[in-house]
């Protein structure tokens, strides 16, 4: 969840008073007002709108949404032609390492603490979101005063890369940065294993940065004295990199900067970036009205889409939409239709319940499970609800089961001690007894739920009484059988689960099919769980019972 913070004073000066109506408008724009006080405003930006991750970006779109200054539609920015030496050469050695970069130069900047903070904040948030933690896109911003154009982007052997990274007082090579620099260690996984690491360097051979890890302390740090910057976005997705670059340069332009294009030399091919040419997409008027349940005419649609910062031309049954080059979320006409809905105002839609008739229906198994629960409740039993995940020790060791002889599913890299899928409910019922030894007895508990036989999922039922003995447990089982009108019986078990007492255990059968066990828990197991009272329990598979009812 990305939150942007900005000064309330600035907001009220440049956008408007933060009264109730304004708060409502912020919410209706699709940006949740998280919190505010006299000084600060915090709003949440959804992941589909990285272009709003700076105050400037938010202000740009929100002012158009408000229709202020009589100006709606696509905001235009002027990009000056590249000057002499405004060139970046991209070496073929970057293939499979970090193949692309897009670049720009912005001049006439007047930075202060606030602005620098806004830029760094936006950079970090773009890294986290669209940049996929710098994997897909990494952004570098450098003071042009300290750089000699043109610039070279290439891949070099790590031990031949030498520069002083940010926050270090000595030179390091590529490997050392990944091993010793705090930021280097954090992002090391993005380069480790590659034969060469990418670097930007200037015409005098000074290293600017080793993306996506770290900038040079000398050439890669902007401050209040910086008036012109070189910007690059490196990564694996040229299109998204271009959009991220557009988000940054428009923000800097909104701060008063002048944007210059750069020539990117990919072998024989030269590409000029940034490119603010709007992308075009058509929307069908009919589809718009059908999806939204509205009857908008062409003019209304045009007005609405322009309030969301697009330009629009009429093309008969369709509208031709010009999409700002910094919008990264427009994939299908529904994305534009949603923006029309936002401009229309979610609170202006008239909710309607269509007159269609369908028959509601519960899952049959759930109905049977509820019936079983109600029968047991009649006997004074409390229903439990345990996790589907369990601890290995609880499932095996405490039940005297050898985990090496059992098949079970272990989850990869679970963040808790609950690392496996439960194989039965009985061990969980004992766990609950053990956690409630000081609570008034008798304790009568049951649970029905999913257990796992490797990847197979079964519904089980377990019922336990403490203090309890075999007779009581069998009485419950028989009552349940009678109430469900099915023939559940017990027989001598061919094999006894380890947690029961031999001679006080039976196999439970439904029409000759074994469905579970009933018996008294062995005192040594009770001891493992620190349970001081005798426990009688049965656990059955519900599968066969479901089948009987669903026939």
């Amino acid at each position, binding site marked *: 969840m990305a939150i942007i913070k900005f000064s309330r004073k600035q907001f009220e000066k440049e956008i408007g008073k933060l009264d109730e109506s304004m708060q409502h408008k912020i919410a*209706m*724009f*699709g940006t949740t007002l998280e919190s505010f006080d006299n000084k600060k405003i915090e709003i949440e930006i959804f*992941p*589909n*709108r990285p272009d709003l991750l700076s105050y400037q970006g938010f202000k740009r779109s929100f002012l158009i949404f408000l229709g202020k200054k009589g100006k709606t539609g696509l905001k235009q920015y002027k990009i000056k032609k590249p000057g002499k030496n405004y060139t970046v050469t991209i070496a073929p050695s970057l293939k499979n390492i970090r193949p692309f970069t897009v670049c720009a130069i912005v001049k006439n900047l007047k930075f202060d603490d606030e602005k620098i903070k806004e830029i760094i904040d936006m950079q970090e948030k773009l890294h986290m979101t669209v940049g996929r933690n710098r994997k897909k896109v990494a952004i570098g911003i450098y003071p042009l005063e300290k750089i000699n154009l043109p610039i070279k982007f290439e891949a070099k052997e790590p031990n031949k890369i030498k520069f002083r990274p940010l926050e270090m007082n000595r030179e390091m090579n590529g490997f050392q940065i990944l091993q010793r620099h705090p930021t280097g260690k954090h992002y090391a996984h993005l380069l480790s294993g590659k034969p060469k690491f990418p670097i930007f360097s200037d015409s005098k051979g000074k290293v600017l940065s080793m993306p996506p890890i770290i900038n040079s302390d000398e050439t890669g740090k902007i401050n209040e004295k910086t008036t012109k910057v070189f910007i690059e976005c490196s990564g694996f997705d040229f*299109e998204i990199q271009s959009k991220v670059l557009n988000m940054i340069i428009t923000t800097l332009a909104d701060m008063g900067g002048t944007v210059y294009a750069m020539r990117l030399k990919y072998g024989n091919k030269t590409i000029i970036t940034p490119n603010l040419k709007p992308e075009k997409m058509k929307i069908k008027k009919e589809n718009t009205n059908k*999806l*939204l*349940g509205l009857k908008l005419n062409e003019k209304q649609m045009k007005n609405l889409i322009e309030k969301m910062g697009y330009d629009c031309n009429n093309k008969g049954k369709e509208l031709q939409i010009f999409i700002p080059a910094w919008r990264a979320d427009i*994939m*299908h*006409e*529904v*994305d534009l*239709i*949603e923006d029309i*809905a936002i401009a229309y105002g*979610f*609170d202006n839609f*008239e909710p*309607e*319940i*269509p007159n269609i008739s*369908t*028959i*509601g*229906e*519960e*899952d049959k198994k*759930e109905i049977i499970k509820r019936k079983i629960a109600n029968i*047991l*409740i*009649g*006997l004074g*039993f*409390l*229903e*439990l*609800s*345990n*996790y*589907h*995940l369990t601890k290995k020790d609880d499932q095996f060791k405490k039940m005297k089961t050898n985990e090496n002889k059992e098949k079970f*599913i*272990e*989850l*990869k*890299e*679970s*963040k*808790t001690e*609950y690392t496996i899928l439960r194989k039965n409910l009985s061990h969980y019922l004992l766990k609950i007894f053990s*956690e*409630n030894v000081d*609570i008034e007895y008798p304790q009568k508990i049951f649970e029905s739920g*999913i257990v*796992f036989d490797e*990847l197979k*999922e079964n519904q089980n039922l377990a019922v336990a009484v403490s203090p309890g003995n075999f007779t009581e447990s069998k009485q419950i089982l028989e009552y349940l059988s009678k109430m469900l009108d099915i023939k559940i019986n017990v027989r001598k078990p061919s094999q006894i689960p380890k947690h029961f007492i031999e001679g006080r255990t039976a196999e439970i059968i439904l029409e000759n099919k074994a469905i579970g066990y009933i018996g008294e828990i062995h005192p040594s197991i009770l001891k493992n769980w620190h349970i001081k009272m005798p426990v009688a329990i049965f656990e059955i598979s519900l599968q066969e019972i479901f089948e009987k009812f669903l026939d």
Partner: protein
Amino acid sequence: MPKEPKKEIDEIQKIAESLSEIERKIIPYLEERDIKKLEKLSELDRVSIVRALNFLKNKGLIKLEIGRQKIIELGVNGVLYKKKGLPERKFLNILEEIRKTLSIEEIKKQSKLSNNEFTAALGALKNKALIELKDKKISLKTSKEELMEKTFEEKLIETLPRPLDKLAPEELQALENLKKRKNIIEIKDQQKISYSLTELGIEVSKISEKISEKLIEQITPNLIKNQEYKGKKFRRYDIISPVSKIYGGKRHFTNQAIDHARKIWTDMGFKEMTGSLIQSSFWNFDALFTAQDHPVREMQDTFFIDKQTELPDKKIVTAIKKAHENGVDGSKGWRYKWQEQEAKKLVLRTHTTCLSAQTIAKLNQKDLPAKFFAIGTNFRNETVDWNHGFELLQSEGIVIDENANFRHLLGYLKQFAKKMGFEKIRFRPAYFPYTEPSLEGDVWDEEKKQWIELIAAGIFRPEVTEPLFGKPIPVLAWGPGFGRMLMAVFNIKDIRELNKNDIEQLRKIKFLVE
């Protein structure tokens, strides 16, 4: 006036009739102030006596004070010395027998006292000036008669245990002396009960025995059959006094809430979908247009299982691959190379939306319009605290209808919120990866006077519905924040309580009234 005293007698009579068995058992003996003796006389144990005394106090028949008092008891050594005599007695006996001066070493040897005991005895005797110590030699300083008399310490030991406040001044001095020595004395803090009959109590006790013989206690089958109640009175109960608690069986509160939600959905014409907790990445992510490099598909966020599964039939796999790579229905798609291998990975489902996807995939045109809901557990690889857990209860519903639109979605949501007990709902734009438009519904909490986030909703993207259904179709989808609602209804502040199974809590928690 003759009326007044008569009423009083009536009152006394009524009180006497209301005495319980244990009260009646002790009331004749309340002249006796010692509770131990009372135990013997009434043949009741101490707990019952205390209960009975409390009952009598509540009826105003006795004055009762339950305080604490200090009791002096013998310690381990004290018990021994009571039997064998104090070390100084041994010491004196030896001196007396030999009747002459002895060296310290000699006495020590003959008395067989330990170092500690010897030092203590020596000190005690010196203090009392019974002996004289000169040049490491000890001689007696008293007559035989005086020697034979017991010391205060010896006397005190013989009388223990006794309450501290009953000790005479010279006994207190002896106690101080003994307290300095090891394990002779123990002082214990005990409950002290004192009581005395009130005037009313005296009156009641006079008639209680007479009355009690005629009172009916338990109603027995014989009593009913033989009409033994005729001409007799029933003992009156103290109807105000508290009774011990009992607890009934109950469904777990989460399941009560699930059933409640189930009823809302079925009332609105929705059919239940169920399915596995273990799902392929294909159904959990790919079918819902979640790009394969999306962070939610990392082990950081999702539980993966180290096994693979087969993908469903080729047709749908190809369609979904196409939706991701180049898009369908005019969409640009995610533009990357979609990997089958990635889709085969097994996960614990992260949402019930995978069931919606499977349901849509099975539908035919002739089944429409159709409405489905699911309710169940989903998983996230999370550390656990009051606000986070690795298992989450969620519920969601979908409407598949060729003519469905955004206004219908709002209509359903309004109805759904009403069924959940909220009259006022408002809608805000939101973002969810597989719906467009997306929105959140806030409902007005009349009690807390504030808007609360309740529902996430949207219309499935064509990139989701086209590959599943064969053509793009509007599917309205929404889900309430089920876990949060549940916690609000049952006043639970910590998410871990949902699976804690604290038996006392389960016994006491309120029953959901629908």
